[in-house]
Every structure is written in structure tokens, then in C-alpha cells.
């Protein structure tokens, strides 16, 4: 096999993993977003019980390596509920990202001036209505720069799901290098694909940042 043919085979094989990587990243980010916002709300606006739950979640999850969470979900919990490697891996990543996102959103909630809540309550909004319509839209805008950073971290952490056999970019690079015996080529292609995905992600998020910038 000559060099070009090898490159084409390698590239095509790894390229199929791009969609898996994107899928894992999107699921993990969405799950993390839901956990993160909910936990941040509990931290900032909840009663002492909810605050404690959220604080414990954040501390424990951030203290445990993500791979360990993936293993627990795949080898322990997946025995009781039917979870494919893809879902076990993505959910575990999302659960982990949720802890980091909760810190991002906690800071954002606290950065919204207190007068905003008071003014919302003064026109008759309930606390929940005020959080939904006044605080959250501003907090999301304040959180965007840090959230964009977290998005690229999750994109790169998506490589970790390969430990449970999900055929994403890295897993496929490893497989094809075993066949072609050209690891440098395989991992270079993987690197290039990650670079492109990261650049696209940051560009999209920067567009959002500009579009929804908050002037105070």
C-alpha cells in the first residue's frame, strides 16, 4: 500500500468517528447544562437542604476522575438499566461536566445585580418567575465566555469514552493504526479533526457571545 492510499483509508475510517464525537459532546454538554443550571439555582436560591445537595455534588464529582465515573456508569449502573456504551459514556461525561457548569452558572447568577431580583419581585413576579424571565437570561449571557471554554474541554474529554469501546475519533485512530502500522499518520489525522472541531466550536460560541452581549 502506498502512502496516499494509506492516508485515504485512514482518513475515511477515522472520519466516521467524527459524528460519534459530536454526538457524545452534544449529549454531555446538554446533560451538563441541565445539571449545571439546576445545581447552580439550588446553590444560589435554594433552601439549606438544596444548597447542601448541590455543594456535595459539585465537590465530589470534581474530585473524581471522569474515567472513574464512566466506569461506574458502564460497569455498575448499566447492569441494572439497559445502557449502550455510547449513552453510558455520554451521560457520565455530562454528569461530570454538570459539576463544572454548576460553578460557572453559580458565578453568573451571583454576578447579576441584586436589584434585578428586587425589581422583578416589585412588579409582582414570583421568585421562580423572576429567576426564569429576569435572572436566567442575564446569567446565561454572563456565563457564555466560561461556558465556551467548558464546551471545548468536554469536546476533548469525549475521547475518554473510548475506554468503554465507543467508536469515536480516538478509538478509530487507534484501530486503523493497528491495521496500517502507521500510528503517526493515524493520530495526526485525529489531531487535525479535533483541531477543526475545536475551532468551529469556539467560532460559533464567539458569535453567540457577540450577538447576546449584555451591556450594564
Amino acid at each position, binding site marked *: 500500500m502506498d502512502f496516499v492510499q494509506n492516508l485515504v483509508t485512514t482518513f475515511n475510517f477515522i472520519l466516521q468517528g467524527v459524528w460519534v464525537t459530536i454526538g457524545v459532546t452534544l449529549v454531555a454538554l446538554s446533560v451538563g447544562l441541565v445539571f449545571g443550571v439546576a445545581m447552580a439555582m439550588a446553590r444560589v436560591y435554594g433552601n439549606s437542604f438544596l444548597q447542601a445537595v448541590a455543594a456535595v455534588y459539585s465537590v465530589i464529582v470534581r474530585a473524581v476522575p471522569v474515567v472513574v465515573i464512566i466506569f461506574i456508569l458502564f460497569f455498575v449502573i448499566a447492569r441494572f438499566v439497559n445502557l449502550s456504551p455510547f449513552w453510558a459514556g455520554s451521560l457520565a461525561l455530562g454528569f461530570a461536566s454538570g459539576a463544572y457548569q454548576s460553578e460557572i452558572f453559580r458565578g453568573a447568577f451571583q454576578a447579576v445585580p441584586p436589584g*434585578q431580583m428586587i425589581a422583578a419581585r*416589585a412588579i409582582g*413576579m414570583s421568585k421562580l418567575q423572576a429567576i426564569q*424571565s429576569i435572572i436566567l437570561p442575564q446569567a446565561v449571557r454572563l456565563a457564555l465566555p466560561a461556558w465556551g471554554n467548558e464546551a471545548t474541554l468536554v469536546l476533548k474529554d469525549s475521547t475518554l469514552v473510548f475506554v468503554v469501546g465507543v467508536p469515536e475519533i480516538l478509538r478509530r485512530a487507534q484501530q486503523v493504526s493497528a491495521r496500517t502500522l502507521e500510528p503517526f499518520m493515524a493520530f495526526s489525522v485525529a489531531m487535525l479533526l479535533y483541531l477543526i472541531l475545536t475551532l468551529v466550536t469556539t467560532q460559533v460560541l464567539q458569535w453567540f457571545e457577540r450577538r447576546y452581549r449584555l451591556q450594564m
Partner: protein
Amino acid sequence: MSTATAPILRIENIHKSFGETRVLTGISLTVQPQEVVVLVGPSGSGKSTLLRCINLLSPPDSGRIWLEEQEITAPGVNPDKVRQRIGMVFQDFNLFNHLTALGNVMIGLTKVRKMSKKEAHDLAMFELERVGLVDRAHHYPAQLSGGQKQRVAIARALGMDPHMMLFDEPTSALDPELTGEVLEVMQQLAREGMTMIVVSHEMGFARQVASRVVFMEGGVVVEEGTPTQMFEQPVHERTRVFLRKIADMDSGGR
């Protein structure tokens, strides 16, 4: 004693403390419909706290408040519903930063009064017209001057169709040349018969618009009366000294 109309607001023996600090120490006050009450007093005398007790933003520790004959400090009263009837305007405006002037007025209409987008839009434009800001409807707070922000805040409160309005030092954060436009809007509201409680040291406004001036100190009412009584012949020495001081500041600042 019988009066033609029932009071719109009756406050009886309100106490409020923050930790060790006793801010309100048994204050009572009655306001008739269409009255404009101007609250004056040294800083820390509890004026702002009293306003926040009235609309239950910070509920009193003890004492009772009646709004239009309904006791709003009674257990089981929904404070959100009470606040819809009492408009409030703040010293530092507190406009919603992520919404335009129009959006600021509309959001209470759609979320709290449950109006349709179209209805809310039309009423919001009407309220902005009342404060003379139709041409700024699509500006964000950051693009408005202080006086314009405060007028939007007044329009936002008016949109809820309040039965009375509370103003917490509405011109204190404004440059002197911008206070006029806000006071003008408030004066117009008073002429239209809005019941208002105004915490302010704008003595010109008090003289011209107030039906009553209330002097507070140490968490209680020291003295109250018509502007003429209060400015010309106050009974208490403390009132006289305080009003003299702010009158001097007022003329010195011009």
C-alpha cells in the same frame, strides 16, 4: 371620626430589625386615596425600609398593614398579588439589563398580567408615551441617560396598573440637570390622582406637590403636616433643624 373615603393604606405599629439593628420602632401612618406623602428624614431613619415593608419586599417583624381595607400582613395573603397593586420606583432604577425600554415595560404585562404579546406591546407603548419616551422604546438601558432610565422604570411600574406608587429616592442617583424630567413625570402622575409615597429630599417637589410631609427619625414619625406647616412652623425642634439643613443644601447646590 368619619371621613368620606376609607384610607388606601393604613400602617399600624410596624417594627423591623435587621439583626441587632432596629430600623423601624413602632411606626404608624395612614394615607388617603390621591394623597402625595413625602417622607423626609436623616439617612438611616428607616424611610426606605418602610417602603419595602409596605409592599412586603421585606415583611415587617410585627405590626399590621392594610391596603384598601385588606390586611396584607395577615397570614395567607399572597405577597405577589399585593405587589401588583403597589408600583415601586428605585433610586438606582433597576431596569432589566437584557431588555429594551419596551421589553422592560412589557415583561410584567405578559408574565404577570398574562396579556397577549400584542396587548402588552400596545399598553407598553402607551405607558412609554406617558413618560415621553416612545422614541427610545427600542433602546437598551445602557443606551439611556439616568433620567430616561428612571422614566422607563416609572412606565414599567405604571404598566401593572398600580393603585398606589412608592418612590424610593427617585432622583438621588441623577445628575442635577436630569432630576427635572423625572419630577415632572411624577408631578403629572400626582395631578392625575395617583396616590404616592415619595422618599425624597427635593424640597421644591415637596412644597409644590405634597399633600403631606412626614418627618421620620429613629424609626418613628416625629412630625407630619402640610408642606406649609412643616416648612414654616414645625412644632419639633428636630424637624426645624433638619428641614433647615436640607433647604440650605438645596439652595446651596443651585
